[in-house]
């Protein structure tokens, strides 16, 4: 049993959009200089403009679950390098770097926990692990999470943060989309609730499989959500994309999301919805 307190890894800042380490941070949106403690107390949102900083999978579970506690499951599923893939860097090295920077074997954290007293299976993607990309392990862990929810007859909540399918495992990554979606069909047949929470960013093969298959698909404000990435689209149409394109509010307006929910209300929203559904 891996409880949060024993597993907690130090906060990482693998990229600009993560909360920078240090006493002070500058908001990416309003550029206000903020006292970090104050921002953390505000769920890593800017107290001035409510800009949502990216948070990691453990912080995500911490803010969503009762008592900020959970029991991690399937932590021992580890990646290999089935295609012996080498681009500018060997894939094996990227996996090692992901492990040492996050303390996680892969880009997905699965746990048993409670929300408003309701036992649930929850999963959160780890964006700082190779861009939250989905290879065989993420596919397997999500599938097992779905199957566990079916087995324990409880709701499923998945928080996405990802660049999509992982190229370095080729078509094996692609097939995870089919594998997970098939498991979700069974969850649907079992009439069990599934809330999909899309956060910044959620693109590619994850959006085109489990992230869009919730009974409720909800997103944090301003999250980038799409199938094709904005750069690919710009190259295809050779035009600049309109402001706000592929942001959560854009998707809401086009009927692709059930709600855009600020981080401060996310937990309450889920609890209310789960109470209604169960």
């Amino acid at each position, binding site marked *: 049993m891996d409880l949060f307190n024993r597993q907690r890894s130090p906060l990482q800042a693998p990229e600009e959009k993560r909360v920078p380490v240090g006493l002070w941070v500058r908001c990416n949106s309003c550029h206000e200089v903020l006292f970090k403690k104050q921002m953390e107390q505000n769920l890593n949102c800017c107290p001035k403009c409510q800009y949502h900083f990216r948070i990691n999978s453990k912080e995500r579970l911490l803010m969503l679950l009762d008592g900020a506690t959970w029991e991690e499951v399937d932590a021992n599923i580890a990646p290999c390098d089935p295609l012996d893939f080498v681009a500018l860097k060997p894939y094996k090295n990227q996996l090692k770097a992901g492990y040492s920077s996050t303390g996680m074997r892969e880009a997905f954290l699965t746990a048993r926990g409670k929300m408003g007293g309701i036992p649930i299976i929850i999963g959160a993607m780890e964006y700082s692990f190779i861009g939250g990309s989905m290879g065989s392990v993420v596919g397997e862990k999500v599938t097992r999470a779905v199957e566990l929810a079916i087995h324990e007859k409880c709701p499923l909540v998945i928080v996405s943060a990802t660049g999509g399918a992982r190229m370095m495992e080729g078509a094996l990554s692609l097939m995870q989309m089919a594998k997970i979606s098939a498991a979700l069909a069974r969850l649907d047949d079992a009439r069990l609730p599934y809330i999909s929470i899309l956060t910044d960013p959620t693109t590619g093969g994850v*959006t085109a499989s489990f992230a869009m298959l919730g009974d409720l698909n909800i997103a944090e404000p301003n999250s980038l959500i799409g199938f094709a990435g904005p750069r690919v689209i710009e190259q295809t149409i050779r035009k600049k994309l309109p402001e706000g394109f592929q942001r959560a509010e854009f998707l809401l307006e086009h009927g692709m999301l059930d709600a855009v929910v600020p981080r401060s209300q996310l937990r309450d929203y889920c609890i209310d919805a789960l109470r209604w559904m169960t």
Partner: protein
Amino acid sequence: MAFEGLVFEEELVAIRKAIIAARTGGPEADSLVEELIRKHDILASQIFTNLSPWQVVQLARHSFRPYTLDYISMLFTGFSEIHGDRGFADDPAIVAGMAYFRGEPVAIIGHQKGRDVKQRLYRNFGQPKPEGYRKALRVMKFAEKFSRPLICLIDTPGAFPGIEAEERGQAEAIARNLREMSRLRVPIIVIVTGEGGSGGALAIGVGDRVLMLQFAIYSVISPEGCAAILWKDASMAETAADKLHLTSEKLLKLGIVDGVLPEPPGGAHADSRSMGATVGEAIAQNLKKLKSLKTAKLIEERYTKFRQMGVFTLALEG
């Protein structure tokens, strides 16, 4: 006229042209035709046994390769096309409809590329929009309602990456198809005939049997896209094609496809009719096996087949 084929097949194409010319010579030219065919097949087997993955990519995208509508006219009778998603539009990048396979009613769904400039634009280069996938889903449910087996032919560079496709929910359309195909209560045979471009291919690709033509490809991303992202250099596409394991031989080993359909000497486009015959035989054999299964078992086996995909290890501790 400039040579329109691929560099490595130039000699073969010259022989094929000579064969066509010799055939007009009447019965006395028969021995010449035979000689040329023999020459063609020997040369073809020499060239085609050592193709690089990048050359296979070129073949999979060959503009003379048989497309879905070609297979429909070769293998099916009474094809009646079903248009539109009943919501927004008809997407010509996917064709679907009712037909008969050797007398038996079936439903067909396939990507359709265009051969000339006008057709290519009309078909959007075989890149479907959400309405294409929603039309496909509609025809899947239609097949299910009337207990007709479903044949899906995959040949797409990928789902269309454009503003309107995103606005109308490209991701949602693909995702829904994956989920619904996995529990569709009729046999599904999927054949990758050319390009299997990522989620845009898989969205009509969750079947009981997934077969692939010898020189077709199936990949998580195009070699060009992969090169641009992982090498930061699109000209590394040839290397990416090798690393992605996108050929039929590699995918069979990885358990992604159930079978590989051999192509005639020179590739599918060198002898479409013989390719059609091979595809037809494969459909007939697999249809017979799948129809003998009870529906519950059919769906259970489909689930298990995709459930097993992926490679990982179990760490000892924690």
